[in-house]
Protein backbone atom coordinates (compact mmCIF):
# COMPACT_ATOMS: atom_id res chain seq x y z
CA UNK A 1 0.00 0.00 0.00
CA UNK A 2 2.60 2.46 1.14
CA UNK A 3 4.62 1.85 -1.99
CA UNK A 4 1.69 2.59 -4.22
CA UNK A 5 0.95 5.78 -2.36
CA UNK A 6 4.45 7.21 -2.56
CA UNK A 7 4.77 9.56 -5.46
CA UNK A 8 7.14 7.90 -7.89
CA UNK A 9 8.20 11.19 -9.40
CA UNK A 10 9.46 12.40 -6.02
CA UNK A 11 11.44 9.20 -5.56
CA UNK A 12 12.94 9.63 -9.00
CA UNK A 13 13.76 13.24 -8.28
CA UNK A 14 15.55 12.29 -5.10
CA UNK A 15 17.40 9.52 -6.86
CA UNK A 16 18.56 11.97 -9.47
CA UNK A 17 19.52 14.45 -6.79
CA UNK A 18 21.63 11.80 -5.07
CA UNK A 19 23.33 10.88 -8.30
CA UNK A 20 24.00 14.51 -9.18
CA UNK A 21 25.53 15.16 -5.76
CA UNK A 22 27.77 12.15 -6.07
CA UNK A 23 28.92 13.07 -9.54
CA UNK A 24 29.57 16.65 -8.47
CA UNK A 25 31.70 15.45 -5.54
CA UNK A 26 33.59 13.10 -7.80
CA UNK A 27 34.20 15.70 -10.47
CA UNK A 28 35.25 18.25 -7.87
CA UNK A 29 37.61 15.81 -6.21
CA UNK A 30 39.25 14.70 -9.45
CA UNK A 31 39.57 18.20 -10.85
CA UNK A 32 40.31 19.97 -7.59
CA UNK A 33 43.10 17.65 -6.51
CA UNK A 34 44.34 17.19 -10.07
CA UNK A 35 44.13 13.46 -9.63
CA UNK A 36 45.81 11.60 -12.49
CA UNK A 37 43.59 9.29 -14.51
CA UNK A 38 45.20 6.21 -13.03
CA UNK A 39 43.99 7.26 -9.61
CA UNK A 40 40.60 8.64 -10.47
CA UNK A 41 39.58 10.18 -13.77
CA UNK A 42 37.03 12.98 -13.75
CA UNK A 43 33.47 12.04 -14.65
CA UNK A 44 33.48 14.38 -17.62
CA UNK A 45 36.54 12.64 -19.01
CA UNK A 46 34.90 9.30 -18.53
CA UNK A 47 31.75 10.42 -20.31
CA UNK A 48 33.79 11.76 -23.20
CA UNK A 49 35.71 8.49 -23.34
CA UNK A 50 32.47 6.58 -23.17
CA UNK A 51 31.06 8.45 -26.12
CA UNK A 52 34.15 8.03 -28.24
CA UNK A 53 34.25 4.28 -27.59
CA UNK A 54 30.50 3.79 -27.71
CA UNK A 55 30.50 1.23 -30.48
CA UNK A 56 32.93 -1.06 -28.68
CA UNK A 57 31.21 -0.57 -25.36
CA UNK A 58 27.74 -1.27 -26.68
CA UNK A 59 28.97 -4.46 -28.30
CA UNK A 60 30.69 -5.52 -25.13
CA UNK A 61 27.68 -4.67 -23.01
CA UNK A 62 25.45 -6.76 -25.23
CA UNK A 63 27.84 -9.66 -24.88
CA UNK A 64 28.03 -9.39 -21.12
CA UNK A 65 24.31 -8.85 -20.69
CA UNK A 66 23.58 -11.93 -22.72
CA UNK A 67 25.78 -13.99 -20.41
CA UNK A 68 24.35 -12.35 -17.31
CA UNK A 69 20.73 -12.72 -18.36
CA UNK A 70 20.96 -16.31 -19.48
CA UNK A 71 22.98 -17.22 -16.40
CA UNK A 72 20.56 -15.33 -14.22
CA UNK A 73 17.56 -17.08 -15.69
CA UNK A 74 19.23 -20.43 -15.33
CA UNK A 75 20.33 -19.64 -11.79
CA UNK A 76 16.84 -18.58 -10.77
CA UNK A 77 15.39 -21.75 -12.24
CA UNK A 78 17.92 -23.91 -10.42
CA UNK A 79 17.55 -22.04 -7.13
CA UNK A 80 13.77 -22.09 -7.22
CA UNK A 81 13.76 -25.67 -8.43
CA UNK A 82 15.97 -26.87 -5.60
CA UNK A 83 13.96 -24.95 -3.03
CA UNK A 84 10.75 -26.42 -4.37
CA UNK A 85 12.29 -29.88 -4.36
CA UNK A 86 13.26 -29.42 -0.73
CA UNK A 87 9.79 -28.17 0.11
CA UNK A 88 8.21 -31.19 -1.55
CA UNK A 89 10.66 -33.70 -0.13
CA UNK A 90 12.11 -32.34 3.13
CA UNK A 91 14.48 -35.30 3.32
CA UNK A 92 16.45 -33.64 0.53
CA UNK A 93 17.21 -30.65 2.71
CA UNK A 94 19.94 -32.39 4.65
CA UNK A 95 21.58 -33.42 1.40
CA UNK A 96 21.21 -30.28 -0.69
CA UNK A 97 21.83 -27.47 1.78
CA UNK A 98 25.29 -28.40 3.07
CA UNK A 99 26.42 -29.23 -0.45
CA UNK A 100 25.12 -25.95 -1.83
CA UNK A 101 26.75 -24.04 1.01
CA UNK A 102 30.04 -25.81 0.53
CA UNK A 103 29.99 -25.11 -3.19
CA UNK A 104 28.99 -21.54 -2.65
CA UNK A 105 31.49 -20.80 0.08
CA UNK A 106 34.27 -21.06 -2.44
CA UNK A 107 34.42 -17.86 -4.44
CA UNK A 108 33.12 -18.39 -7.92
CA UNK A 109 36.41 -17.14 -9.27
CA UNK A 110 38.02 -20.03 -7.47
CA UNK A 111 36.26 -22.38 -9.78
CA UNK A 112 37.12 -20.40 -12.82
CA UNK A 113 40.08 -22.56 -13.85
CA UNK A 114 37.91 -25.64 -13.56
CA UNK A 115 34.89 -24.05 -15.18
CA UNK A 116 36.95 -22.59 -17.99
CA UNK A 117 38.50 -25.99 -18.42
CA UNK A 118 35.18 -27.77 -18.50
CA UNK A 119 33.14 -25.24 -20.45
CA UNK A 120 35.74 -23.44 -22.51
CA UNK A 121 36.59 -19.80 -22.74
CA UNK A 122 33.43 -18.73 -24.53
CA UNK A 123 30.00 -17.67 -23.38
CA UNK A 124 28.99 -20.92 -21.74
CA UNK A 125 31.56 -20.79 -18.94
CA UNK A 126 30.32 -17.32 -17.96
CA UNK A 127 26.75 -18.51 -17.96
CA UNK A 128 27.66 -21.40 -15.70
CA UNK A 129 29.47 -19.12 -13.29
CA UNK A 130 26.61 -16.63 -13.15
CA UNK A 131 24.10 -19.42 -12.70
CA UNK A 132 26.11 -20.82 -9.81
CA UNK A 133 26.33 -17.47 -8.07
CA UNK A 134 22.68 -16.61 -8.59
CA UNK A 135 21.20 -19.98 -7.78
CA UNK A 136 22.55 -20.04 -4.25
CA UNK A 137 21.17 -16.63 -3.34
CA UNK A 138 17.84 -17.52 -4.83
CA UNK A 139 17.80 -20.91 -3.12
CA UNK A 140 18.46 -19.41 0.30
CA UNK A 141 15.92 -16.62 -0.10
CA UNK A 142 13.29 -18.93 -1.45
CA UNK A 143 13.81 -21.51 1.29
CA UNK A 144 13.57 -18.86 3.97
CA UNK A 145 10.39 -17.62 2.35
CA UNK A 146 8.90 -21.09 2.14
CA UNK A 147 9.70 -21.76 5.79
CA UNK A 148 8.09 -18.55 6.91
CA UNK A 149 4.60 -19.89 6.38
CA UNK A 150 2.11 -20.02 9.26
CA UNK A 151 1.80 -23.62 10.37
CA UNK A 152 -1.90 -23.21 11.03
CA UNK A 153 -2.45 -22.07 7.48
CA UNK A 154 -0.66 -25.19 6.27
CA UNK A 155 -2.96 -27.21 8.49
CA UNK A 156 -5.96 -25.52 6.99
CA UNK A 157 -4.81 -26.36 3.48
CA UNK A 158 -4.15 -29.94 4.51
CA UNK A 159 -7.63 -30.20 5.95
CA UNK A 160 -8.93 -29.32 2.49
CA UNK A 161 -7.07 -32.37 1.30
CA UNK A 162 -4.41 -30.30 -0.43
CA UNK A 163 -1.37 -32.28 -1.49
CA UNK A 164 2.14 -31.10 -0.71
CA UNK A 165 2.10 -29.55 -4.10
CA UNK A 166 -1.22 -27.85 -3.49
CA UNK A 167 0.07 -26.36 -0.25
CA UNK A 168 3.18 -25.25 -2.03
CA UNK A 169 1.42 -23.63 -4.94
CA UNK A 170 -1.43 -21.93 -3.17
CA UNK A 171 0.14 -21.07 0.17
CA UNK A 172 3.89 -21.42 0.44
CA UNK A 173 4.83 -19.85 -2.86
CA UNK A 174 2.80 -16.68 -2.30
CA UNK A 175 4.21 -16.48 1.23
CA UNK A 176 7.73 -16.91 -0.11
CA UNK A 177 7.31 -14.43 -2.92
CA UNK A 178 8.47 -11.28 -1.10
CA UNK A 179 11.70 -12.92 0.04
CA UNK A 180 12.27 -14.67 -3.24
CA UNK A 181 11.92 -11.44 -5.15
CA UNK A 182 14.27 -9.64 -2.77
CA UNK A 183 16.81 -12.38 -3.40
CA UNK A 184 16.29 -12.10 -7.12
CA UNK A 185 16.71 -8.35 -6.92
CA UNK A 186 20.00 -8.64 -5.09
CA UNK A 187 21.11 -11.26 -7.59
CA UNK A 188 20.69 -9.02 -10.60
CA UNK A 189 23.75 -6.95 -9.78
CA UNK A 190 25.72 -10.01 -8.84
CA UNK A 191 24.98 -11.67 -12.12
CA UNK A 192 26.51 -8.80 -14.08
CA UNK A 193 29.51 -8.65 -11.76
CA UNK A 194 30.21 -12.35 -11.96
CA UNK A 195 29.97 -12.25 -15.73
CA UNK A 196 32.44 -9.38 -15.83
CA UNK A 197 34.87 -10.94 -13.37
CA UNK A 198 34.84 -14.21 -15.25
CA UNK A 199 35.44 -12.40 -18.48
CA UNK A 200 38.48 -10.79 -16.96
CA UNK A 201 39.93 -14.22 -16.38
CA UNK A 202 39.55 -15.28 -19.96
CA UNK A 203 37.00 -14.42 -22.59
CA UNK A 204 36.43 -13.53 -26.18
CA UNK A 205 34.53 -10.35 -25.52
CA UNK A 206 32.38 -8.47 -23.08
CA UNK A 207 32.83 -5.63 -20.65
CA UNK A 208 35.17 -7.65 -18.46
CA UNK A 209 37.36 -8.27 -21.44
CA UNK A 210 37.36 -4.57 -22.29
CA UNK A 211 38.28 -3.70 -18.71
CA UNK A 212 41.03 -6.26 -18.68
CA UNK A 213 42.52 -4.89 -21.88
CA UNK A 214 42.19 -1.34 -20.67
CA UNK A 215 43.92 -2.10 -17.37
CA UNK A 216 46.83 -3.57 -19.27
CA UNK A 217 47.04 -0.53 -21.47
CA UNK A 218 46.77 1.61 -18.38
CA UNK A 219 43.76 3.27 -19.94
CA UNK A 220 41.77 4.02 -16.83
CA UNK A 221 39.33 6.26 -18.59
CA UNK A 222 38.27 3.26 -20.60
CA UNK A 223 38.13 1.08 -17.50
CA UNK A 224 35.75 3.55 -15.92
CA UNK A 225 33.74 3.92 -19.11
CA UNK A 226 33.18 0.17 -19.13
CA UNK A 227 32.25 0.26 -15.45
CA UNK A 228 29.75 3.02 -16.16
CA UNK A 229 28.15 0.94 -18.85
CA UNK A 230 28.10 -2.10 -16.56
CA UNK A 231 26.51 -0.06 -13.79
CA UNK A 232 23.87 1.31 -16.09
CA UNK A 233 23.06 -2.19 -17.30
CA UNK A 234 22.88 -3.59 -13.76
CA UNK A 235 20.81 -0.70 -12.61
CA UNK A 236 18.32 -1.23 -15.40
CA UNK A 237 18.20 -4.92 -14.60
CA UNK A 238 17.76 -4.20 -10.91
CA UNK A 239 15.03 -1.71 -11.68
CA UNK A 240 13.23 -4.20 -13.89
CA UNK A 241 13.09 -6.83 -11.16
CA UNK A 242 12.11 -4.17 -8.64
CA UNK A 243 9.27 -3.16 -10.92
CA UNK A 244 8.13 -6.78 -11.25
CA UNK A 245 8.31 -7.08 -7.49
CA UNK A 246 5.96 -4.16 -6.97
CA UNK A 247 3.55 -5.58 -9.53
CA UNK A 248 3.53 -9.05 -8.00
CA UNK A 249 3.44 -8.10 -4.34
CA UNK A 250 0.36 -5.93 -4.50
CA UNK A 251 -0.91 -7.11 -1.14
CA UNK A 252 2.00 -5.96 1.01
Amino acid sequence: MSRALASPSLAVQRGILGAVLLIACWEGLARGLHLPAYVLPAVSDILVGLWSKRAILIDAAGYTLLEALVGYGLGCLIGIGLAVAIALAPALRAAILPLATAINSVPVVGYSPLILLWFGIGVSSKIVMVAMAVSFTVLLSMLAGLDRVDRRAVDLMKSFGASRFGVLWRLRLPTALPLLLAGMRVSTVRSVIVAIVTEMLGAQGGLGWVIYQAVLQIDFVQVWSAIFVASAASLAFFGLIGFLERKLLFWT
Partner: protein
Amino acid sequence: PAAEPQKASLRLKWLPQAQFAGFYVAAAKGYYKAEGIDLTINPGGPNLLTENLVATGADTFGLSGGTDSVFAARDKGLPIVCIGVSHQITPFIFVTRKDGPVKTLQDFKGKTVTTWFTGANHVLNGMLAKEGVKADEVKIQPQQVSVTPFVDGNVDVITATYYNEFYTIQSRMPKDSLKTFVAEDYGITFPRDTLIVAEATAKEKPELVKAFLRASLKGWKDAFADPKGAVDTVMAAAPTLDRAQQEFMLTEVKRLMTAGAAAKNGMFWIDADAVKTAHDFFLKYGVISKPLDLVAAYDASFIQSVPLADRLP
Protein backbone atom coordinates in the same frame (compact mmCIF):
# COMPACT_ATOMS: atom_id res chain seq x y z
CA PRO B 1 75.15 3.58 4.77
CA ALA B 2 72.78 5.52 6.96
CA ALA B 3 72.33 4.62 10.58
CA GLU B 4 68.56 4.41 10.23
CA PRO B 5 67.49 1.85 7.58
CA GLN B 6 65.27 3.39 4.98
CA LYS B 7 61.86 1.86 4.42
CA ALA B 8 61.17 0.70 0.88
CA SER B 9 59.08 -1.88 -0.91
CA LEU B 10 59.45 -3.95 -4.03
CA ARG B 11 56.29 -4.86 -5.90
CA LEU B 12 56.69 -8.04 -7.91
CA LYS B 13 54.74 -8.75 -11.07
CA TRP B 14 53.41 -12.00 -9.62
CA LEU B 15 53.28 -14.22 -6.56
CA PRO B 16 56.46 -15.54 -4.95
CA GLN B 17 58.22 -18.05 -7.18
CA ALA B 18 61.72 -18.81 -8.42
CA GLN B 19 61.29 -16.19 -11.11
CA PHE B 20 62.07 -13.69 -8.34
CA ALA B 21 64.46 -15.86 -6.37
CA GLY B 22 67.30 -13.30 -6.28
CA PHE B 23 65.23 -10.70 -4.46
CA TYR B 24 64.12 -13.21 -1.85
CA VAL B 25 67.66 -14.46 -1.35
CA ALA B 26 68.97 -10.91 -0.97
CA ALA B 27 66.29 -10.17 1.59
CA ALA B 28 66.88 -13.43 3.46
CA LYS B 29 70.60 -12.90 3.60
CA GLY B 30 70.24 -9.32 4.79
CA TYR B 31 71.84 -7.71 1.76
CA TYR B 32 69.23 -4.95 1.68
CA LYS B 33 69.67 -4.32 5.36
CA ALA B 34 73.39 -4.08 4.84
CA GLU B 35 72.71 -1.37 2.29
CA GLY B 36 70.51 0.45 4.77
CA ILE B 37 67.22 -0.54 3.21
CA ASP B 38 64.34 -2.02 5.15
CA LEU B 39 62.73 -3.74 2.18
CA THR B 40 59.31 -5.35 2.04
CA ILE B 41 58.64 -7.61 -0.90
CA ASN B 42 55.02 -7.31 -2.03
CA PRO B 43 53.75 -9.98 -4.35
CA GLY B 44 51.66 -9.06 -7.38
CA GLY B 45 48.39 -10.48 -8.62
CA PRO B 46 45.96 -10.39 -11.50
CA ASN B 47 44.89 -6.86 -12.36
CA LEU B 48 47.55 -5.40 -10.16
CA LEU B 49 49.57 -3.07 -12.29
CA THR B 50 53.06 -2.58 -10.95
CA GLU B 51 53.57 0.62 -12.96
CA ASN B 52 50.51 2.08 -11.39
CA LEU B 53 51.56 1.28 -7.85
CA VAL B 54 55.06 2.62 -8.34
CA ALA B 55 53.82 5.75 -10.10
CA THR B 56 51.46 6.57 -7.24
CA GLY B 57 54.14 5.95 -4.65
CA ALA B 58 52.43 2.95 -3.07
CA ASP B 59 55.59 0.98 -3.77
CA THR B 60 59.16 2.19 -4.17
CA PHE B 61 60.40 -0.37 -6.65
CA GLY B 62 58.60 -2.53 -9.10
CA LEU B 63 59.39 -5.57 -11.16
CA SER B 64 56.89 -4.79 -13.87
CA GLY B 65 55.56 -6.57 -16.92
CA GLY B 66 58.25 -5.64 -19.42
CA THR B 67 59.27 -3.15 -22.04
CA ASP B 68 55.72 -3.22 -23.36
CA SER B 69 54.16 -2.13 -20.11
CA VAL B 70 56.82 0.51 -19.53
CA PHE B 71 56.03 1.95 -22.95
CA ALA B 72 52.35 1.90 -22.28
CA ALA B 73 52.84 3.59 -18.91
CA ARG B 74 55.05 6.31 -20.33
CA ASP B 75 52.64 6.73 -23.20
CA LYS B 76 49.85 7.37 -20.69
CA GLY B 77 52.04 9.79 -18.78
CA LEU B 78 52.80 7.68 -15.73
CA PRO B 79 55.95 9.10 -14.12
CA ILE B 80 58.06 5.96 -13.97
CA VAL B 81 61.57 5.14 -15.08
CA CYS B 82 63.02 1.76 -15.96
CA ILE B 83 66.27 1.15 -14.12
CA GLY B 84 67.01 -2.35 -15.31
CA VAL B 85 65.78 -5.15 -17.53
CA SER B 86 65.69 -8.68 -16.20
CA HIS B 87 64.82 -10.99 -19.09
CA GLN B 88 66.99 -9.97 -21.98
CA ILE B 89 65.18 -12.00 -24.60
CA THR B 90 61.54 -12.85 -25.21
CA PRO B 91 60.62 -15.17 -22.32
CA PHE B 92 57.79 -16.90 -24.15
CA ILE B 93 57.46 -19.09 -27.18
CA PHE B 94 54.67 -20.50 -29.32
CA VAL B 95 54.28 -24.25 -28.97
CA THR B 96 52.65 -26.78 -31.26
CA ARG B 97 52.69 -30.53 -31.71
CA LYS B 98 55.50 -31.88 -33.77
CA ASP B 99 53.18 -34.35 -35.49
CA GLY B 100 50.45 -31.73 -35.90
CA PRO B 101 49.51 -29.76 -39.02
CA VAL B 102 51.53 -26.69 -38.08
CA LYS B 103 55.06 -26.83 -39.43
CA THR B 104 55.74 -23.19 -40.26
CA LEU B 105 54.24 -19.82 -39.43
CA GLN B 106 52.41 -20.05 -42.77
CA ASP B 107 50.53 -23.02 -41.35
CA PHE B 108 49.04 -20.80 -38.61
CA LYS B 109 46.44 -19.77 -41.20
CA GLY B 110 43.04 -21.09 -40.23
CA LYS B 111 44.39 -22.70 -37.09
CA THR B 112 43.41 -22.01 -33.53
CA VAL B 113 46.13 -20.12 -31.72
CA THR B 114 45.74 -19.00 -28.12
CA THR B 115 47.82 -16.28 -26.63
CA TRP B 116 47.84 -13.69 -23.86
CA PHE B 117 46.63 -10.28 -24.74
CA THR B 118 49.16 -8.84 -22.32
CA GLY B 119 51.83 -8.23 -24.96
CA ALA B 120 52.38 -11.70 -26.34
CA ASN B 121 49.69 -10.99 -28.92
CA HIS B 122 51.80 -8.17 -30.37
CA VAL B 123 54.77 -10.48 -30.68
CA LEU B 124 52.63 -13.04 -32.42
CA ASN B 125 51.25 -10.42 -34.79
CA GLY B 126 54.77 -9.19 -35.49
CA MET B 127 56.01 -12.67 -36.27
CA LEU B 128 53.05 -13.35 -38.55
CA ALA B 129 53.55 -10.03 -40.31
CA LYS B 130 57.15 -10.85 -40.95
CA GLU B 131 56.01 -14.01 -42.72
CA GLY B 132 53.30 -12.17 -44.59
CA VAL B 133 50.42 -13.82 -42.76
CA LYS B 134 47.54 -11.51 -41.97
CA ALA B 135 46.36 -11.64 -38.37
CA ASP B 136 42.73 -12.17 -39.36
CA GLU B 137 43.62 -15.32 -41.23
CA VAL B 138 44.50 -16.94 -37.93
CA LYS B 139 42.00 -17.84 -35.26
CA ILE B 140 43.68 -16.02 -32.42
CA GLN B 141 41.94 -16.53 -29.09
CA PRO B 142 42.60 -15.40 -25.57
CA GLN B 143 44.48 -18.04 -23.66
CA GLN B 144 43.08 -19.37 -20.43
CA VAL B 145 44.98 -20.43 -17.41
CA SER B 146 45.12 -24.10 -18.23
CA VAL B 147 47.20 -25.84 -20.90
CA THR B 148 44.73 -28.71 -20.95
CA PRO B 149 42.92 -27.53 -24.11
CA PHE B 150 46.25 -27.73 -25.93
CA VAL B 151 47.15 -31.09 -24.43
CA ASP B 152 43.71 -32.36 -25.41
CA GLY B 153 44.25 -31.18 -28.97
CA ASN B 154 41.53 -28.52 -28.99
CA VAL B 155 44.09 -25.82 -29.65
CA ASP B 156 46.76 -25.99 -32.33
CA VAL B 157 49.24 -23.46 -31.02
CA ILE B 158 49.65 -22.25 -27.47
CA THR B 159 51.76 -19.51 -25.92
CA ALA B 160 54.06 -20.56 -23.11
CA THR B 161 56.75 -19.01 -20.94
CA TYR B 162 59.90 -21.05 -20.83
CA TYR B 163 59.82 -21.19 -17.09
CA ASN B 164 56.16 -21.98 -16.36
CA GLU B 165 53.69 -23.19 -18.99
CA PHE B 166 56.35 -24.89 -21.05
CA TYR B 167 57.23 -26.90 -17.96
CA THR B 168 53.60 -27.82 -17.40
CA ILE B 169 53.19 -28.90 -21.00
CA GLN B 170 56.33 -30.99 -20.79
CA SER B 171 55.08 -32.69 -17.65
CA ARG B 172 52.13 -33.92 -19.67
CA MET B 173 53.61 -34.43 -23.13
CA PRO B 174 57.12 -35.60 -23.98
CA LYS B 175 59.34 -32.71 -24.89
CA ASP B 176 60.34 -34.22 -28.24
CA SER B 177 56.74 -34.30 -29.38
CA LEU B 178 56.66 -30.49 -29.30
CA LYS B 179 57.69 -27.88 -31.82
CA THR B 180 58.34 -24.28 -30.79
CA PHE B 181 58.41 -20.91 -32.57
CA VAL B 182 60.81 -18.39 -31.06
CA ALA B 183 60.41 -14.63 -31.57
CA GLU B 184 64.09 -14.00 -31.94
CA ASP B 185 64.12 -16.27 -35.02
CA TYR B 186 61.92 -13.69 -36.69
CA GLY B 187 63.99 -10.71 -35.61
CA ILE B 188 61.76 -9.69 -32.74
CA THR B 189 63.03 -9.29 -29.22
CA PHE B 190 60.75 -8.49 -26.45
CA PRO B 191 62.66 -7.93 -23.19
CA ARG B 192 60.45 -8.40 -20.14
CA ASP B 193 60.48 -8.16 -16.35
CA THR B 194 61.64 -4.58 -16.01
CA LEU B 195 62.74 -2.94 -12.77
CA ILE B 196 61.08 0.43 -12.34
CA VAL B 197 61.00 3.35 -9.91
CA ALA B 198 59.05 6.56 -9.84
CA GLU B 199 60.67 9.53 -11.53
CA ALA B 200 60.74 11.30 -8.22
CA THR B 201 62.65 8.46 -6.58
CA ALA B 202 65.14 8.40 -9.40
CA LYS B 203 65.70 12.08 -9.05
CA GLU B 204 65.63 12.49 -5.29
CA LYS B 205 67.04 9.23 -3.98
CA PRO B 206 69.55 7.96 -6.52
CA GLU B 207 71.61 6.41 -3.76
CA LEU B 208 68.69 4.36 -2.58
CA VAL B 209 68.15 3.06 -6.10
CA LYS B 210 71.78 2.18 -6.51
CA ALA B 211 71.90 0.48 -3.15
CA PHE B 212 68.85 -1.52 -4.06
CA LEU B 213 70.44 -2.67 -7.29
CA ARG B 214 73.66 -3.65 -5.55
CA ALA B 215 71.87 -5.76 -2.98
CA SER B 216 69.57 -7.34 -5.56
CA LEU B 217 72.46 -8.28 -7.81
CA LYS B 218 74.20 -9.92 -4.88
CA GLY B 219 71.10 -11.88 -4.18
CA TRP B 220 70.78 -13.04 -7.76
CA LYS B 221 74.41 -14.11 -7.92
CA ASP B 222 73.92 -16.14 -4.77
CA ALA B 223 70.75 -17.64 -6.17
CA PHE B 224 72.49 -18.81 -9.31
CA ALA B 225 75.43 -20.10 -7.30
CA ASP B 226 73.21 -22.11 -5.01
CA PRO B 227 69.95 -22.86 -6.85
CA LYS B 228 68.80 -25.40 -4.26
CA GLY B 229 69.24 -22.92 -1.44
CA ALA B 230 67.48 -20.23 -3.47
CA VAL B 231 64.48 -22.47 -4.09
CA ASP B 232 64.40 -23.21 -0.36
CA THR B 233 64.24 -19.51 0.32
CA VAL B 234 61.41 -19.00 -2.15
CA MET B 235 59.50 -21.98 -0.85
CA ALA B 236 59.73 -20.65 2.65
CA ALA B 237 57.57 -17.79 1.39
CA ALA B 238 55.26 -20.06 -0.61
CA PRO B 239 55.38 -23.59 0.81
CA THR B 240 52.80 -25.13 -1.49
CA LEU B 241 54.89 -24.67 -4.62
CA ASP B 242 56.18 -27.65 -6.53
CA ARG B 243 59.92 -27.92 -5.90
CA ALA B 244 60.83 -29.59 -9.16
CA GLN B 245 59.03 -26.90 -11.09
CA GLN B 246 60.73 -24.15 -9.12
CA GLU B 247 64.13 -25.60 -9.79
CA PHE B 248 63.31 -25.81 -13.47
CA MET B 249 62.07 -22.24 -13.36
CA LEU B 250 65.24 -20.94 -11.78
CA THR B 251 67.34 -22.61 -14.46
CA GLU B 252 65.23 -21.05 -17.21
CA VAL B 253 65.19 -17.65 -15.57
CA LYS B 254 68.96 -17.74 -15.31
CA ARG B 255 69.13 -18.40 -19.02
CA LEU B 256 66.79 -15.50 -19.79
CA MET B 257 68.58 -13.09 -17.46
CA THR B 258 72.02 -13.81 -18.76
CA ALA B 259 71.17 -14.05 -22.46
CA GLY B 260 71.90 -11.42 -25.08
CA ALA B 261 73.70 -8.30 -23.99
CA ALA B 262 73.73 -9.42 -20.36
CA ALA B 263 76.33 -12.03 -21.11
CA LYS B 264 78.77 -9.21 -21.65
CA ASN B 265 77.31 -6.36 -19.63
CA GLY B 266 75.85 -8.21 -16.70
CA MET B 267 72.38 -8.69 -15.29
CA PHE B 268 69.68 -6.02 -15.45
CA TRP B 269 71.54 -4.44 -18.33
CA ILE B 270 69.44 -2.08 -20.39
CA ASP B 271 70.14 -2.96 -24.00
CA ALA B 272 69.35 0.30 -25.75
CA ASP B 273 69.17 -1.41 -29.15
CA ALA B 274 66.68 -4.01 -27.98
CA VAL B 275 64.61 -1.31 -26.34
CA LYS B 276 64.66 0.79 -29.50
CA THR B 277 63.65 -2.20 -31.64
CA ALA B 278 60.78 -2.96 -29.36
CA HIS B 279 59.76 0.70 -29.30
CA ASP B 280 59.70 0.99 -33.06
CA PHE B 281 57.80 -2.24 -33.30
CA PHE B 282 55.08 -1.04 -30.94
CA LEU B 283 54.92 2.28 -32.68
CA LYS B 284 54.47 0.58 -36.00
CA TYR B 285 51.62 -1.53 -34.73
CA GLY B 286 49.95 1.38 -32.99
CA VAL B 287 50.26 -0.02 -29.50
CA ILE B 288 51.72 3.28 -28.39
CA SER B 289 50.32 6.47 -29.76
CA LYS B 290 53.47 8.55 -30.24
CA PRO B 291 57.26 8.14 -30.18
CA LEU B 292 58.68 8.13 -26.67
CA ASP B 293 61.76 9.70 -25.16
CA LEU B 294 63.64 6.46 -24.58
CA VAL B 295 66.48 8.08 -22.68
CA ALA B 296 64.07 9.44 -20.13
CA ALA B 297 62.19 6.18 -19.90
CA TYR B 298 65.18 3.87 -19.63
CA ASP B 299 67.82 5.27 -17.30
CA ALA B 300 70.87 3.02 -17.44
CA SER B 301 72.93 5.21 -15.14
CA PHE B 302 71.89 3.35 -12.02
CA ILE B 303 72.83 -0.07 -13.21
CA GLN B 304 76.02 1.28 -14.69
CA SER B 305 76.97 2.62 -11.26
CA VAL B 306 77.42 -0.96 -10.08
CA PRO B 307 80.86 -2.33 -10.96
CA LEU B 308 80.66 -4.76 -13.87
CA ALA B 309 82.11 -7.58 -11.82
CA ASP B 310 79.21 -7.38 -9.42
CA ARG B 311 76.78 -7.57 -12.30
CA LEU B 312 78.17 -10.56 -14.08
CA PRO B 313 76.57 -13.77 -12.88
